[in-house]
C-alpha cells in the first residue's frame, strides 16, 4: 500500500485517476482504516487529502458557508457561527461515534463511506448542501442527495474527490436532526431525519426540506414532505400531511436493528418531532 499526501486537490485527483488498482481517499480514516484492517478493502494507494487547504477549512461564501470535506466533527462543533445557522447539521455530525471518533470523522467521509444510515447525510440534504467535486477533468457540483446511489455505491467517477460542501444561507431558517437508536449513545441509526424550515415574517413556511436516512438503499430527499409544509403555519394538518409523505417514501429493509413496519412508523414520528424543533428554532432566528 502506497501513501500520498498532496497539497492540492488537483494533484490528489490525478493520483487517484492514474492508479489502475484500488485507490482510496483518506480523510478521517474512521471507516477506511477499519475496513482495511477487516480486509474488506485492500487498496494499493491511499491519498490523504488533509494537507489540502480547501478540504480543511470552513469559510463564509456569499452569505452561506463552505465546509471542507475533511474538517472533523470536533472542529465543526467548535466553529463560532455554524452551530447558530445549522444546529441540525451540527447535531447530526456530532452524533457520529465517540469523542475520539469526532476528533477525526468528517462530513466527506460520512457521505463517501456509502452507508444509508450515515447520520450527517439527511441533515446535509435538508440544509440543501451541494458538494464541490474535483476530478481529473475539472470541477463540478452535485447536491448531496444525488451522491449516494446505493450502499457503498456513489455517483463519483474514478479520480473524483469531494473537496467541500456549500451550505446556502437562508434568512429566518433553521434545522434539526433526530435519529432513533436503541441505546442512548454510539449506535447506528435505525431511522434518521433532518428537517430545514424557512419562515416569512408572518410565520408562514416558505421553504422546507426533509431528509431521511436508514429507510431506503440511499439517504432520501422527500420532496412531497417539504411541499406539505410550504404555505402553511406548520400546523397539525400540515404536519399530518408531511408525516404521510415521509412514510410513503420509506422503502426500508428488515434487519436486526428494526423491521420494515417499525422503521416506517418511526420515520413519521421522528419527522414530526424534528420539524417541530426546526420550527421552534426558525421562529427564534
Amino acid at each position, binding site marked *: 500500500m502506497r501513501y500520498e499526501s498532496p497539497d492540492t486537490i488537483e494533484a490528489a485527483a490525478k493520483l487517484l485517476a492514474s492508479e489502475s488498482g484500488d485507490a482510496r481517499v483518506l480523510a478521517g480514516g474512521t471507516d477506511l*482504516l477499519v475496513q482495511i*484492517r*477487516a480486509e474488506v478493502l485492500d487498496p494499493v494507494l491511499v491519498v*490523504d487529502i488533509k494537507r489540502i487547504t480547501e478540504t480543511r477549512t470552513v469559510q463564509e461564501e456569499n452569505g452561506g458557508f463552505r465546509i471542507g470535506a475533511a474538517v472533523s466533527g470536533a472542529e465543526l462543533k467548535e466553529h463560532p457561527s455554524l452551530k447558530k445557522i445549522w444546529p441540525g447539521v451540527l447535531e447530526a455530525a456530532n452524533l457520529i461515534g*465517540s*469523542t*475520539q471518533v469526532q476528533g477525526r470523522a468528517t462530513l466527506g467521509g460520512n457521505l463517501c463511506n456509502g452507508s444509508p444510515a450515515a447520520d450527517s447525510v439527511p441533515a446535509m440534504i435538508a440544509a440543501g448542501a451541494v458538494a464541490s467535486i474535483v476530478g481529473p477533468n475539472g470541477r463540478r457540483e452535485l447536491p448531496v442527495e444525488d451522491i449516494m446511489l446505493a450502499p457503498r455505491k456513489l455517483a463519483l467517477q474514478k479520480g473524483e474527490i469531494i473537496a467541500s460542501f456549500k451550505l446556502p444561507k437562508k434568512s429566518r431558517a433553521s434545522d434539526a436532526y433526530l435519529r432513533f437508536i436503541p441505546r442512548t*449513545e454510539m449506535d447506528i441509526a435505525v431511522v434518521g431525519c433532518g428537517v430545514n424550515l424557512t419562515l416569512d415574517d408572518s410565520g408562514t413556511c416558505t421553504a422546507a426540506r426533509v431528509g431521511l436516512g436508514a429507510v431506503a438503499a440511499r439517504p432520501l430527499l422527500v420532496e412531497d414532505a417539504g411541499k406539505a409544509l410550504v404555505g402553511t403555519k406548520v400546523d397539525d394538518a400540515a404536519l399530518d400531511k408531511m408525516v404521510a409523505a415521509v412514510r410513503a417514501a420509506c422503502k426500508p429493509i428488515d434487519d436486526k436493528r428494526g423491521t420494515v413496519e417499525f422503521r416506517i412508523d418511526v420515520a413519521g414520528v421522528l419527522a414530526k418531532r424534528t420539524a417541530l424543533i426546526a420550527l421552534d428554532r426558525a421562529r427564534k432566528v
Partner: protein
Amino acid sequence: MKHHVTTTVNGDEVEFLCETDQTVLDCLRNELELTGTKEGCGSGDCGACSILLDGRLVCSCLVLGVEASGKTIETIEGMAKGDTLHPLQRKFLEHAALQCGICTPGVLVAAKSLLERNPDPTETEVRYWLAGNLCRCTGYDKIIRAVMDAAAEMRGA
C-alpha cells in the same frame, strides 16, 4: 517502502520507520516501545488506544503512523511528571477506579483532555465524553467519581 517519520511525543522529538499500513498505535508500541497505550478492539470502538494528536483526542488505532509526521502526540507516558502523578492518576488510585487496568490509560488520557477543555464538567458531561472508553470490568461509577473528584481538586488548586 518504509516511511521515515519525525514527530513529537510527550515533548520529545522522535523519529521512527514504519510501513504504510502501520497505525500510530503500532508505531508507539512496537517502534518507540511506548507500551502504555493499549490495543483493545483495533476498530475505534473501545478507546483503549486514546492519545492526543495535535491536542485532539483520537484513537491511535485509526491513525496511520505516516500521518503523524510533523505532528504532536501526547500519550499516557507523559501524564505523570517524574514521580509526581497527575491528579487524575492519584484520584483513580484513591477511588480504586480500575480493576484489570487495560482501559485505564485511555480513560486517563480522555479525561485529561476533557478537563483541559472543561474544568467543571457535570457528571452527564463526563459520562458522554467518556462514552467511547469501554471498561469490560464495568467499573464506570468509580471512574466517573474519580474524574469528578480530580476536577474539583484541580479547580481548587
